């Protein structure tokens, strides 16, 4: 049955491709009679760099392959979508996304001179009291502690950033959209999105309008999006700031207080957890304007105000609590974040036709109520080599300040803050991306492209406040990643 369906889908796709090819051949046959040249022109149709799909259906597909250095996260994300454009300007769109994630992700603890072991609450095994979890590292073990429940344990080598190698998830998402050409200069749009992961669900609803003025040289737009999220780890969400199950093997038993005896399992996080889904609502407003400056310059500016209310803590992330003198970890606590976050940003984008090339220059300023300020600068230059092929070098620079509750670690005996996280995404860092895209305009309406990129974060490897032997260790948990995107789009 599945084979039949797949064969049918393939036949339809080939049919559409054939239709494109025939249409292209028809358009060029009269002017290019030579056989080889005719085929070349049919495939690499000249003059296909034209926007607008009125009366056509566009199919847009792509796949992202993303790999972080050091055997960390790998993501493979195929998407396919279609937009049906009616001749009167109305449009209906649908898009499907599947996102498969595997690999290892930092758990929030710091490296230490010796091996560290971690235990995290887990879903109950199907049978038996002990099992080895099949994971990328093969180092996670599932054990059931009497009176406590199932716990997944893993170890991290000495002087190594602690990562949880059992990380695996799959996200499936669907996006639906409808745009109504209300009048010659006014468009209304609504959207609906749903996303499902093993431990996270999200649903969002959006609405907006755009209106043209001044012979369509100016367009004003506004939109509102409401997103409803649920975090649903299999073991529930740990109570913030509760001790993790387990501890470092070389636990600090100094006078200012480690906890129980060395290596003893403390089941607090298993007991102190919320089993019901943790909810969050994100309300987001965007207002903006696009303006044609002249024949070679199009600019856009937009302002985004977002409010996130509810559970925003990472249920998997911990923070090391260390001895103030030696720096040795004695405990690991689950992090705690505020339940409210207000984000604001201004985005300014420019398209410039410079000679035969097309440049994209953008800048974004961002501020949020957690204390993060950031600036993002993007640049891309599309250089047509022929009418059917272009190359496009791209670059992006990003820099952010730390959230006001970010800490690399906690110190034993000091007052416990209400909010604390060692998440590297909330730290002060900068990031640079460089990439190269090559695109081919195929047939009359198609485009095939490949984009290869390198992303590198730069930050504080030896923070000034490090204590004891932590001064000798690399505490930076930033990311370096390589990604490749391949996409194909066509209309019929």
């Amino acid at each position, binding site marked *: 049955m599945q084979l039949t369906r797949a064969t049918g889908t393939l036949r339809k796709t080939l049919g559409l491709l054939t239709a494109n090819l025939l249409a292209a051949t028809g358009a060029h046959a009269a002017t290019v009679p030579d056989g080889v040249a005719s085929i070349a022109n049919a495939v690499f149709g000249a003059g296909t760099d034209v*926007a607008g799909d009125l009366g056509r259906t566009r199919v847009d597909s792509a796949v992202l392959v993303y790999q972080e250095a050091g055997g960390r996260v790998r993501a493979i994300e195929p998407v396919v979508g279609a937009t049906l454009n009616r001749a009167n300007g109305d449009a209906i769109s649908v898009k499907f996304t599947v996102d498969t994630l595997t690999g290892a992700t930092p758990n929030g603890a710091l490296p230490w001179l010796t091996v560290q072991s971690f235990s995290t609450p887990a879903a109950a095994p199907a049978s038996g009291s002990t099992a080895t979890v099949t994971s990328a590292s093969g180092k996670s073990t599932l054990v059931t502690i009497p009176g406590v429940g199932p716990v997944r344990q893993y170890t991290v080598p000495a002087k190594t950033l602690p990562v949880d190698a059992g990380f695996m998830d799959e996200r499936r998402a669907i996006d639906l959209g409808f745009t109504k050409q209300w009048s010659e200069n006014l468009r209304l749009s609504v959207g609906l999105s749903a996303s499902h992961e093993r431990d996270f669900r999200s649903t969002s609803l959006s609405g907006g309008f755009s209106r043209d003025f001044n012979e369509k040289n100016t367009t004003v737009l506004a939109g509102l999006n409401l997103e409803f999220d649920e975090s649903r780890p299999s073991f529930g969400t740990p109570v913030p700031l509760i001790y993790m199950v387990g501890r470092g093997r070389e636990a600090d038993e100094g006078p200012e207080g480690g906890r129980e005896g060395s290596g003893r399992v403390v089941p607090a996080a298993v007991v102190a957890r919320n089993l019901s889904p943790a909810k969050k609502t*994100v309300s987001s407003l965007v207002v903006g304007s696009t303006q044609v400056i002249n024949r070679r310059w199009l600019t856009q500016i937009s302002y985004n105000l977002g409010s*996130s209310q509810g559970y925003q803590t990472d249920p998997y992330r911990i923070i090391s609590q260390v001895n103030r003198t030696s720096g040795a970890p004695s405990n690991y606590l689950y992090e705690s974040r505020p339940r409210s976050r207000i984000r604001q940003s201004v*985005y300014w*984008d420019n398209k410039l036709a410079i000679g035969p090339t097309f440049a994209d220059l953008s*800048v974004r300023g961002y501020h949020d109520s957690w204390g993060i300020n950031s600036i993002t600068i993007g640049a891309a230059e599309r250089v047509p080599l022929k009418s059917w092929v272009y190359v496009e070098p791209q670059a992006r620079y990003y820099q*952010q300040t730390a959230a006001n509750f970010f800490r690399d670690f906690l110190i034993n005996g000091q007052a416990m803050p209400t909010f604390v996280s060692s998440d590297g*995404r909330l730290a002060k860092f900068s990031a640079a991306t460089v990439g190269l895209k090559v695109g081919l305009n195929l047939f009359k309406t198609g485009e095939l492209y490949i984009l290869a990129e390198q992303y590198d*974060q730069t930050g504080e490897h030896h923070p000034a406040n490090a204590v004891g032997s932590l001064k000798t260790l690399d505490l930076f948990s930033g990311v370096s990643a390589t990604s490749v995107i391949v996409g194909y789009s066509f209309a019929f």
Partner: protein
Amino acid sequence: MKPDRKRGWAVLLLASSLSLGLTGCSTIGVRPWEHDLLAKKSMQLNVAPNVTAFHEHVEFSKEGSAGGRSFDGGGCGCN
């Protein structure tokens, strides 16, 4: 006021002034028959929506900021 915050407001003010200044000028814009370059796919603001979506997804899951070009929600549990 913190320097970073000052910088943010400065960017906002500059961008707003520029935008308002440009839209208030009577010489900007083109006539309908001057759309030859603007009508090109390469000249569109979001020329590759899937690539933009991939970028925003990766950046949302690896950085502390979100939004700007569009809404700031992520629709995933990656941040």
